[in-house]
């Protein structure tokens, strides 16, 4: 017994040493990323919140604590309120059109055998292309005297429209361009969801009597696409919420502020007028929106759409 007790006693400290070594390795591996996280995410966030309660302007010598004045100003600022309204209008159009359009396209493409991958490529093309470059193409397409769209619409009886310079139509036009870029992305997500529905379920439904397209869709396809739909809805909302590139390239918020959106106004206040404190407050509100959306996503995914 005395002999064997030596090798039996030693593993404990050895094990502890090994664990210490692994912990050290772990900390060393994580350190660079953790430092970046502090420098790029955490510290700026703290600074942001602090800035949002000051009247700081870039280059200003004196800084004053103003409490929640920036937030109060924001909600009475007609430009900001208009930006919020425009952004929500934009989302209100792009979200349903993007989700249901993507679903409809996916359903149609899914049923095709030989041409399926061709359609996939075509509809996905706008997703991969540089939006700023394509926006300049859209600008040219929509140009009232040089582009083909205006005469085309005139020929169809809509009159001569200048889509990007008409205060009533500019935002809708931007939304259509956003939809153009987004549809293929959603379609591909729905296609993946459709391919994951077990064939057995459609066959069981056929035997149960759910053979018509409506019943098949309501009993099998739609419920089985629950998780995908959730995901697509959230991602579409977030990317529509962040509409920016097309505004910069095509309208600069005009005409008459009809396309002022949240990010564009934020960009102007922060980096053109350099009203840093005010822009910081706006950013905090933006972050609150996005966090709310993510929470909603996590909550909904947990509650509703977990089958397996």
């Amino acid at each position: 017994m005395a002999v064997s007790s030596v090798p039996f006693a030693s593993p404990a400290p050895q094990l502890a040493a090994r664990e210490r070594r692994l912990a050290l390795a772990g900390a060393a591996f994580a350190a660079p990323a953790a430092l970046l996280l502090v420098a790029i995410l955490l510290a700026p966030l703290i600074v942001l919140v602090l800035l949002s309660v000051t009247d700081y302007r870039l280059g200003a010598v004196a800084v004053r604590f103003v409490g929640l004045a920036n937030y109060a100003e924001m909600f009475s600022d007609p430009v900001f309120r208009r930006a919020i309204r425009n952004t929500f209008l934009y989302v209100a159009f792009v979200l349903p059109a993007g989700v249901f359009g993507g679903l409809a396209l996916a359903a149609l493409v899914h049923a095709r055998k030989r041409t399926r991958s061709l359609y996939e490529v075509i509809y996905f093309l706008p997703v991969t292309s540089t939006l700023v470059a394509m926006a300049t193409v859209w600008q040219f397409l929509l140009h009232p005297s040089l582009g083909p769209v205006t005469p085309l619409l005139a020929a169809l009886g809509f009159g001569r429209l200048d889509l990007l310079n008409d205060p009533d139509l500019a935002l809708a036009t931007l939304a259509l361009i956003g939809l153009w870029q987004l549809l293929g992305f959603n379609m591909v997500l729905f296609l993946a969801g459709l391919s994951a529905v077990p064939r057995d379920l459609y066959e069981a439904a056929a035997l149960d009597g759910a053979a018509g397209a409506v019943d098949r869709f309501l009993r099998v396809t739609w419920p089985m696409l629950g998780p995908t739909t959730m995901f697509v809805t959230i991602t579409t909302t977030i990317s529509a919420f962040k509409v920016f590139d097309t505004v910069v390239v095509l309208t600069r918020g005009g005409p008459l502020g009809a396309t002022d959106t949240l990010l564009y106004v934020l960009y102007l206040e922060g980096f053109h007028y350099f009203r840093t404190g005010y822009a910081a407050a706006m950013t905090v509100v933006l972050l609150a929106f996005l966090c709310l959306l993510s929470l909603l996503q996590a909550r909904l995914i947990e509650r509703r759409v977990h089958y397996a």
Partner: protein
Amino acid sequence: MTDGESADGVRLTGIAKSFGGTRVLAGLDLAVRAGEFLTLLGPSGCGKSTLLRIIAGLERQDCGTVSIAGRPVDHLPPAERDVAMVFQSYALYPHMTVAGNLATPLEMRRLTLLERLPLIKHLSPRRARVMRGIMAEVRAVAEALRIEALLDRKPAQLSGGQRQRVALGRAMVRHPAVFLMDEPLSNLDAALRVEVRHELADLHARLGTTFIYVTHDQVEAMTMSSRIALMDQGRILQLGTPDDLYDRPASLAVARFIGSPSLTVLETVADGVGGIRLGAVRLPFGHRFAAGTRLSLGIRPEAFALPLGPEADGPALAARLVRAENLGAEWHLHVRLDLPGEPPAIVRLTAAEHEAARASGLLEDPLTLVLRARGVHLFGPDGARVEPDPAHTAVVE
């Protein structure tokens, strides 16, 4: 209503099916009697599942006719063929409760399309009444299957055996003329499989409905079926009761497939006067093959005996023991026969026989193996079984 015995259950005539260039079913005929438990048995890829799916209407045959209860159903969609199916994966609707799953086939039949649409459905005053009736039937089926406590759960919250029962319930709830089952036990563990096997057999006895059951497991087929259709390469090799298939296999292929451990097959030659030769031993069979015809002799493991008491006076072969396996109730001896090429053979002994043989020293090499009459089959050059002539089998030279 059909009146049991006289009416057809399911009749298949000339069913053929190819996928791409591969022929899966080769012009197949089968008459399933009303109320019987018919099993389609065969190795994977033999076409049994395809045949089942053709009966269900999930797959279209290239040619041939399917009739159910005397009427052709080829033009009917699956839901109107009066069949229900239990899938291998169960195919339960994952987003519905057990009650919802069971109710679906009835809702589809008894509610109009408008009464099934979300939101709009609540406008129908008739719907609530119909649904009450449906739920009563659902509860009755659930009670029969002892799953009434699970009605509010979703499939993901059930065990494999419970899901299997729900799938069965979904098939039962609309009282179909025919139950189709596609390997319904293959996703269960071994112990549960035995239990559900008994339950299925009970259920069949209770309902008296036609069951068509697909499996690759011969134990399932042998234990539950009224009749078995053994399939291979898109054809039915033999249709018969489990006894028929085991004791009177139509061909060497059938004899090889049924029975575990598999039977020993020895190549032999006809002697021209109704017998065959195995080394020094002549077995008289009463066949009519010319001398020199190549024949196959199949011997079930239990057709070998050790020369204990009354068994001692059959035709005997010498053998060398390679390995003995103890399975508890029985022993399997792996031996090599003292014949040209030393062919391997498997001998099945009961534990009692093994004990007695060991006591008498009969397990010492070389073994003497006596052939019993039952379980020895002769197959002609075409693989078909040769019916032995009873007048000669008992005679040993």
